[in-house]
């Protein structure tokens, strides 16, 4: 990989890589700055979702039965499928990074495309779920209806619709913001795809792929928590 400066053949200077910004001393510094920047940004994202997890925790503690009932009304199989889809996309992302590191341009492009396809699949399944909720009048608001839904494990008892509505409020806000992050992720990956297509990445310079990947994995991790917390509260018969 040492002789890779010829691969894409943009510039030949050893000293000053074209992507090196003027205020950095050397490429390593620039890459480390970008990656630290992304990590720090992800830390703020954790706190952003953290506020919602906090609200979730409080109401789940208060209204456990109603949350169980509401959770049971969403399709856990779709949720599990989506989890699997995201995990696969995480794999393709990490392969893309590897491809960029090892100068495999075709693999890189392929993996980026796969990642985006998985991302789209995720959003597709998600919209199906939203659509079902809409049909069932489980979207908070005037037409919300959750009458006579039994509480799991408490025969003969019905969930309180107001409390179920809080569950669905949180469900939509949390998954909605997660989906928004997915959409932003797709935007980022489109950009990466274009750059990869133009052959801008080299083993020396592929920081965008790396930090884009970090972002994608983070969004995956959020979902890893959302899935059990929203879909699997009190499933057993």
């Amino acid at each position, binding site marked *: *990989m040492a002789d890779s400066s010829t691969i894409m053949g943009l510039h030949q200077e050893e000293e000053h890589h074209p992507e090196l910004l003027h205020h950095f001393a050397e490429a*390593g510094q620039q*890459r*480390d700055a970008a*990656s*630290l920047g992304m*990590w*720090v940004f*992800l*830390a703020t994202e*954790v*706190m952003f979702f*953290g*506020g919602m*997890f*906090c609200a979730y*925790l*409080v109401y789940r*503690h*208060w209204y456990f039965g109603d949350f169980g009932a509401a959770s049971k009304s969403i399709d*856990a199989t779709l949720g*599990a499928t989506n*989890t*699997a889809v995201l*995990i*696969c996309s*995480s*794999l393709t*992302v*990490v*392969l893309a990074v*590897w491809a960029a*590191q090892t100068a495999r341009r075709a693999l890189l492009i392929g993996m980026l495309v796969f990642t985006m396809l998985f991302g789209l699949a995720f959003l597709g399944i998600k919209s199906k779920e939203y659509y079902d909720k809409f049909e069932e009048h489980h979207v908070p608001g005037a037409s919300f209806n959750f009458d006579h839904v039994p509480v799991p494990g408490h025969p003969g008892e019905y969930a309180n619709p107001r409390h179920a509505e809080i569950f669905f409020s949180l469900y939509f806000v949390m998954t909605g913001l997660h989906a928004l992050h997915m959409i932003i992720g797709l935007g980022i990956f489109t950009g990466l795809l274009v750059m990869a297509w133009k052959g801008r990445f080299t083993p020396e310079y592929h920081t965008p792929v*790396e930090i884009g*990947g*970090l972002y994608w*994995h*983070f969004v*995956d*991790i959020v979902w*890893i*928590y959302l*899935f*059990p*917390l929203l*879909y*699997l*509260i*009190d*499933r*057993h*018969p």
Partner: protein
Amino acid sequence: MTGHESAKSPLKMYFAVWAALLMFTFITYKVAFIELGPFNAVVALVIATLKATLVALFFMHVWHAGERLIKVVVGGVVFFLLLLLTLTMADYLTRPWS
């Protein structure tokens, strides 16, 4: 994040992690349908945390991060998140009513 050149190809590791993640997803999904009382939540959260750790350590390369700094960032933010959750719940769990 650097210095992969000398290391052997990480592909095997990536696929292993991927398989583990899928397996864990399957387990959470199945276990949720078994009556375990309060342990349903515990199992679900433990597995989720395992999965998140796997993704962070291997896919996001925290394990191989050249620097301690990244680990500090990750550990730090988890700490502050837990602060938010526990100190808030400290109120809710000790309120006499609602």
